[in-house]
């Protein structure tokens, strides 16, 4: 039982490869999950691994390092497509949580209500996983297997999120429905990224969280939106959303709301998130 402050990625991976060890970064999910139970294995702290924290870009797009915090995202200079992700970052727990918690941790924790997942799905995020044996990449939707389940192997660290370039006019938005302000787990949430060309939608991505085992994109809705004019979509509002569009969702009933309510709220939030992207777009 020990605590390793990893000085390099390889050091972290070597330690992890020995087994009976857990990765810790922001700790915002790790400590609540532990509760009062004693620690039995090693802890590997990756927050001081050089290069693991921060947002950079290269020719293909953006790279969000595995130790990047929500506050880092809020403060980063990013194109409007990331507005949904930034908005989600501001709604993660509280300032205290945003200062410590990481996007990668949010994904690895794999809560159905993880605030980061819908916006990252709409951005087409790819997950980069490193182990002592190499690096592999997969779409976020593949990485998330179910509640508290991911494709991460025990020896792997989520080292980065890779986000492909989107058109400069792509506009993101995010809406979270909870029973209070701040510090709230969502009843339902929706992220959208929409690109307009000459007043019509040329690209659309929508994802809904807290309404299925893992957050889901809505491909049928996205397809139906292509070619529609912004004015049409705004005028149609929630009537635009059909049950078929929401087919990927399978909400449960819990203390936060019934399944039927969640379905209805998802449709409402989809329409409102779309409206936000359309109203925020300067290139109408």
């Amino acid at each position: 039982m020990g605590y390793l402050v990893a000085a390099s990625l390889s050091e972290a991976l070597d330690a992890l490869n020995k087994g009976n060890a857990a990765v810790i970064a922001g700790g915002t999910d790790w400590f609540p999950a532990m509760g009062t139970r004693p620690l039995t294995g090693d802890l590997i702290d990756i927050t001081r691994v050089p290069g693991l924290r921060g947002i950079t870009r290269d020719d293909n797009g953006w790279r969000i390092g595995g130790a990047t915090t929500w506050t880092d995202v809020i403060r980063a200079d990013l194109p409007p497509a990331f507005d949904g992700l930034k908005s989600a970052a501001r709604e993660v727990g509280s300032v205290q949580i945003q200062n410590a918690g990481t996007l990668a941790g949010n994904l690895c924790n794999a809560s159905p209500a993880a605030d980061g997942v819908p916006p990252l799905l709409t951005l087409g995020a790819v997950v980069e996983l490193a182990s002592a044996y190499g690096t592999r990449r997969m779409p976020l939707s593949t990485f998330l297997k179910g509640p508290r389940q991911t494709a991460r192997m025990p020896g792997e660290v989520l080292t980065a999120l890779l986000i492909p370039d989107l058109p400069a006019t792509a506009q993101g938005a995010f809406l979270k429905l909870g029973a209070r302000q701040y510090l709230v787990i969502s009843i339902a949430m929706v992220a959208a990224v929409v690109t307009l060309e000459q007043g019509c939608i040329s690209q659309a991505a929508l994802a809904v969280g807290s309404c299925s085992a893992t957050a889901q994109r809505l491909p049928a809705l996205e397809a139906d939106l292509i070619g529609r004019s912004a004015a049409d979509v705004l005028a149609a509002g929630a009537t635009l959303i059909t049950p078929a569009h929401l087919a990927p969702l399978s909400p449960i009933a819990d203390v936060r709301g019934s399944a039927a309510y969640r379905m209805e709220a998802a449709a409402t939030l989809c329409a409102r998130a779309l409206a936000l992207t359309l109203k925020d777009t300067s290139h109408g």
Partner: protein
Amino acid sequence: MDKHSAQHITAFHLNGHVVEVEGTPGERLSHALRERLGAKDVKIGCNAGDCGACTVLVDGAPVCACLMPVQQAAGRKVETLAGLVKADPHATRLMDSFQAHQAAQCGICTPGMMVSAVALLRDVAAPDAAQVQDALGGVLCRCTGYRKIIDAVVGAGAAQPSEGSGDVGTTIRRLDGLPKVTGTEAFGDDVAPADALVVRVIRSPHAHAGFTLGDLDAYRAAHPGIHSILTAADVPGLNAFGVIPGFIDQPVFAVDHIRFRGEAIAAVVGDAAIMAQLDLDAFPVTWDPRPAAMDCTSALADDAAQLHPGRAQNIMCRGHVACGDPDSALSRADVTVEGRFTTAFVEHAYIEPEAGFATYDGTRVTVHACTQAPVMDQDALMQILAMPRETIRIIPTAVGGGFGSKLDVSIQPFLALAAMKTGRPVRITYERTESMQSTTKRHPAQITMRIGATADGRISGMTFDGDFNTGAYASWGPTVANRVPVHASGPYHVPDYRATSRAVNTHCVPAGAFRGFGVPQSAITQESLFDELAAKLGMDALDFRILNALDNGIPTVCGQTFDIGVGVKQCLEALRPAWDAAKQDCAAFNATNTAHKRGVGLAAGWYGCGNTSMPNPSTIRAGLRADGTVVLHQGAMDIGQGANTVIPQIFARALGVPVHRLSLLGPDTDITPDAGKTSASRQTFVSGNAARLAGEALRRAILSHVNAAPDAVITLDDGQVSVTDGTQHFTLDLTRLDPNPAGYVLEVNESYDPPTKPLDKNGQGAPYAQYGYAAHLVVVDVDLALGRVRPLHFTAAHDVGQAINPLLVEGQVQGGIAQGMGMALMEEYIPHRTENLHDYLIPTIGDVPPIDTLIIEVPDAHGPYGAKGLGEHVLIPTAPAILNAIHNATGARITQVPATPARVRAALKEAGHA
């Protein structure tokens, strides 16, 4: 793995000094700061990032210290409140501003609030309210309703409002306020010596089960560092506690079967380091789960398991009040309404979990713990320990919120038993989940009411039937069953009335006292139906209430009349300007908005101060020392509401000296006489009267020494007591007076017990010497498609008879409204499911809108200088006012609280909204 820090030291800067600490791997920074570095100003409320009490700055950024491994702090700069107030100019200004605005009530969240505010002020010199809300949104407060905190941060850079003289009726800062803003206030978890053993309690994971303990000796042998394991066999006296004679039914340790999830079966006592690493799940016990009855309906069923012998159908007790002939009054009514309303378990959610420590010297056991009722704790321990009163000393710590639940013992028996068994100082602190699972809640209620009115708008008949889920053990269930029928009419003239209540045992956590003792639940029903009745009559909801409001000389449903002091009409009238304006504003908004609708609602309430037809005296002691100091022994527990300021203000007025001249002592059962429990809105009224009598008695004693007239002026100055009587001036020669063993040359002890009369079989009598009155108005916004309700503004009128300290009144009102909002919109404790502060939601700083407090002063015949109690009144009208506003906005009538978005949306659809 050479950088493994299993045995490594972590060094960082703490408040400007380099510190080194040897934490265990992954040890929470909050734990290391408090237990290894003595930074007790860092408070722990949840250990899950849900409450923010432990907020510290790490390299300038606010983080929850409970979510950071101490090793992560290596080389970094950690700042806590105690350090900031010494070195940071923003913190210094906040100290002043928080005190001036009374932004700290109990003070447990204050370090988290102020540290977060320092980070904001470093970034934004003059933040607005919205920026303050964003920055402080991660810190929960259960006392203040947040608005004074917002005011204090927004106003930190401005000149602070000046204080009054301290006389009754003037606002002064809390006399005990400074430690709350410097991080030096000592709460239950802050007082144990470093070598204290730690107690942890083994609890049932099931709602109903038999159990068999395994080989405890072997378990102990396998865990070096465990000093003792306590079970029912270790209880020398009665293995039971409770608060009402005849209902002492909850075991300290269950013997062979448990009746609720979280019930204690054993406690392990050991070295702190060992206990921190102990896996309680491995404790040797075998469970035999049995079917559980989790609500009244299932517990009342014929085939339900009986929880306690002698309580047929699991009905623990009943309450009944009747007058006139309600059935014929209802039959001759021109309109009637009927409704069934359901409420949930509500958790007190004070940010300070139960904590304390105890010592035993071979003769006396001393318990230091957060409590609302030190002498009741002593009473309980006398029975459990089979020891006389003088061998049990209770020294209350500062209390980080109580609201009723800290009236009952929780940790005290475990502490006392463990200290006596081990002979060592012992400490305990409940985990948040443990606190939520095992301590009392507000009773869930199922209430049916029928109310009639004649065409002229007068009430004609009212019947009330309420079932209250009192959980597995009695606690204050009998009080709820008694109080509700007395209050369920609301503050109205109802000549024909019948109310019956039942407290039903179930396999749930015990329901007990929570601000209002069942009255908030009944008010939801009655005040909602009043709106329905007014609508059927075609009357304005405010006019209808004023027409039927109680008044001087009009009997209550208990047949009690008051010659003076009934102030509900004044409260309602005071709302009229806000009512008229809000109706117009909402109509204008609704004319142009389709997705959101706004509505205004109101409700009134009343509450009898003190025990129901039972004695509940308070005694206040004071003395004059030979050095000229006047000492007030203040034993009325201040749990944040302000008794430490109110009681001295009253005493000072009676004595005729400035309040700041007093020296305060207590609470401590060795030195402060019994001022009763902090409950039932009784401290300002009952202990306040005892303080008034004590002040008057000391005044008489001083004046009689110099034969001065009763209106002579007493002056305390420079160790001298002088008296000016007209043109004559005397100085008491204190050296000529013999000090008593306590060191007082003059000492007084005065008691006050409110004059009440017993209730007969129909609940007729004089249950309370005094009622306080209230009326709330709220404007809400309803998102029609999502069912999300946001209160936008409250106006709250409270008849307090005489405000002793008007800013304290505002603080009570705002805090009560926040709790009422929570009950109305989001709070629902469900065993197994909402046992933490992220599944159980209380309002945050972003939820509570601006609140206008209208202080109404209709003097009471008995209260000190006319003052009335306030603590419960502030919560009673809030929830029904919100439900009425939702109805006003949308036409949807909510009959189940909390009105979560899903429930509101369902009601909206039922009301015809798309």
